[in-house]
């Protein structure tokens, strides 16, 4: 017994570190999983189905960009102890805040629409009309956040997210030509046509969604992580980001191996579900539907919530789930309106749910450079960050990402005016 105790005691510093790591883990992993929402799954599926392995080379680069952006947002949160909207208001004043928040609300609304589109699409696989599934989902989501314990909801969501691993399995079981995969991963292909550019921006926009930066920073501030424990949070961020991108990559590979090979384009969720065929056979559709539904519902709950919080944070309105509704009128109104509009727009006659989901992610990609510039200004402010501000190397990479993104958006505008 004594020897055992001694051994346990010697492990203490490692136990402490592990405990700290586990305590801190959360925001990064959760945000990463939320990354693979309706818009994400759709984007990666379409990318794989329509372009095969040609876009794979993007993924490692996007992973790096994602890690960089998430790390900056985490660092901002840990060092300042404030949310991103709070920082924007304090550093840029009311006018800039109003413009940024307006853009963000618009983008978040589009994303919420996309989530409800995901609900509709997934339930259509089971033959349930969107006129039934969407209103039900809207009511469920509304109640869920107001009445349920958020932590439980989060845990259920995370466990259900294990479904994404099925994409990895499916990707392998589709027996792709691994040479082709490697080729795709290492050879940059770039077609100067608007469809390709749009897909490019969309992939970036869905992996590094602006709203995720706000959500993650708030989550981190919530947890109250001390600056000295920051390195554990970095691990959380990196692991989360890598997981998200790995899953995304395998969604692409799976779709490339099944749909692209057969020349099937993704017009509806049913088509996308075929990508899980190698793994699940006739259960592919159900599996896909369940995964999509899980992702859509959870994101449909937190998007409006996160938006309501950040608007109230920026303008100094009371925001809390624990107060009486008439004390937090504006907070409540924003949350409810986003759900109603998000669900409502989906209920209008839309030709393609898939297109709706893709469009919202493209919007993210267009808005992203603006948010990145804001974050870069904040993170280089020595009054705010002290010794934790950016190193020059990091700044260079980050600014490079911004420039690439802005050029792409400009190219897109040019190409839409002068079609190629």
């Amino acid at each position, binding site marked *: 017994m004594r020897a055992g105790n001694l051994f346990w005691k010697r492990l203490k510093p490692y136990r402490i570190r592990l405990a700290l790591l586990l305590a801190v883990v959360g925001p990064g992993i959760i945000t990463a999983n939320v990354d693979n929402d309706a818009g994400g799954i759709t984007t990666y599926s379409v990318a794989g189905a329509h372009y095969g392995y040609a876009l794979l080379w993007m993924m490692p680069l996007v992973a790096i960009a994602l890690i960089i952006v998430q790390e900056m947002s985490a660092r901002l949160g840990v060092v300042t102890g*404030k949310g991103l909207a*709070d920082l924007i*208001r*304090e550093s840029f*004043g009311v*006018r800039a805040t109003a413009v940024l928040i307006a853009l963000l609300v618009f983008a978040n609304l589009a994303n919420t629409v996309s989530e409800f589109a995901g609900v509709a699409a997934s339930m259509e696989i089971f033959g349930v009309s969107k006129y039934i599934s969407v209103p039900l989902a809207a009511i469920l989501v509304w109640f869920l956040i107001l009445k349920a314990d*958020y932590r439980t909801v989060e845990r259920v969501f995370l466990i259900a997210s294990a479904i994404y691993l099925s994409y990895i399995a499916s990707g392998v079981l589709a027996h792709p030509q691994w040479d082709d995969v490697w080729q795709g991963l290492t050879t940059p292909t770039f077609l100067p046509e608007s469809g390709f550019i749009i897909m490019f921006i969309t992939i970036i926009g869905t992996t590094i969604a602006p709203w995720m930066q706000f959500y993650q920073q708030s989550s981190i501030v919530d947890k*109250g992580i*001390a600056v000295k424990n920051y390195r554990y949070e970095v691990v959380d961020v990196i692991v989360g980001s890598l997981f998200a991108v790995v899953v995304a990559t395998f969604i692409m590979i799976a779709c490339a191996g099944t749909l692209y090979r057969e020349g099937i384009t993704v017009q509806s969720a049913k088509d996308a579900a075929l990508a899980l065929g190698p793994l699940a056979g006739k259960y592919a559709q159900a599996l896909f539907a369940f995964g999509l539904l899980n992702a859509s519902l959870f994101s449909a709950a937190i998007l409006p919530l996160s938006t309501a919080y950040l608007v109230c944070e920026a303008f*100094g309105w009371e925001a809390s789930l624990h107060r009486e509704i008439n004390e937090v009128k504006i907070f409540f109104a924003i949350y409810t309106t986003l759900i109603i509009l998000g669900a409502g727009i989906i209920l209008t006659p839309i030709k393609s749910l898939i297109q709706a989901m893709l469009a919202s992610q493209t919007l993210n990609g267009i808005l992203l450079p603006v948010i990145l510039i804001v974050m870069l200004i904040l993170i280089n402010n020595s009054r705010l960050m002290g010794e934790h501000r950016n190193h020059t190397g990091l700044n260079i990479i980050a600014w490079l990402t911004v420039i690439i993104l802005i050029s792409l958006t400009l190219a897109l505008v040019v190409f839409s005016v002068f079609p190629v």
Partner: protein
Amino acid sequence: MPYISKLIGRPVADIDGDTIGKLNDLLANYQGEIPHPKIVALEVKKGHSIITVSIEDVTVLIAPAVALNKKHADLENYEPRPDDLYLVRDVLDKQIIDTNGVRVVRVNDLELARVDAEIYVANVDISGAGLLRRLGLNARGYRIGKTAGRRALPGSISWDDIELISGDQPMRLKVPSEKFTELHPADLAEILSDLSRQEGQEFLGSLDLETLADTLEEVEPDFQASLVAGMSNELVADVLEEMEPDEAADLLGELPEDRSQELLELMQDEEAEDVRKLLTFPEDSAGGIMTTEFVDVAATLTAEEVLQVLREKGKDVETIYYIYVTDQQNQLNGVFSLRELVLANPSALVSEFMEKRVITVNLDDTQDDCAQAISKYDLIAVPVIDDERKLHGIVTADDALDKIIPTAWKKRLPHLYH
């Protein structure tokens, strides 16, 4: 009264009429006992260069263009003092504590006032109208603001009712605990629940020990635990000694085992004894919610002597409204109220006017039992005894009710998502 948002950006011209830059910020500081800070300097920006000009060099500040009384070349750079407050950089758009309304609000604008020849910061504008003004939607905004803000928060708070949340500033202003010690701990707890975790820590750091303990008692144990996580063990031990033993026991119960042990060892033996004892009882039993701080006397004392005892011990106990009568073996034999004590003849013996039939609860009775006893017999507190009728502590009405009624008012961990 002029608003700072209107002044910022105006051109600053020297005595020759040459524009030397735009007004970028105003520096203010407290003069003597006046609770409103006075403008002491201006920050003028031209391109990338910034010069700070003392207010002495300004002819008129509140005008379409700020006029100086010296030539550009003759201006001396004002050396900012460490406690000078930069109004735009440190106050505008930041969150502050409104000690009057007991809440945390955001500064949308600042109202200045001219008294004699000097400009002071009069009020803080936190209204929606203020937001609209900042966005430049003036007259229209004013009307919209008035109708929308009808039943909303009052628009302006006087500067002497607010307290800055430090954080960004290198130095705090006045001694903050002045305003805070006047507030009820429940109000302080309310403010605390509106602050972020970091801000909350600093807020608590500015309170004196007694106020800190009282404020902590007003929040839920899990919130308490997260707040003390950042404090040194010595400080926490001091706070625990200040707190009521049952509250201290609750808090210790929430902390990790080893820290809990360390803290108990740091505490004074007497206090630690009480708390350790309370910790041995299950949380939801009478033993778990009782306090050991009550008054007990022997039956042989006179009313006069009991009053003497009260004067000595009265300050340290939970309540003096009920006085319990115990014998040498600490067995509970009777009880009487303060009213009965005061109305009794000073030379009457306790045994004569005490109530022999005492309503009690047992150590392992549930909280529900305590609440029922208290409400059935209209008690303020109920004594807790063991099987041998020895008195261990009392459960006060507020503690019993606390556990039964959903603690909507007891401040909970402020959280967005968790």
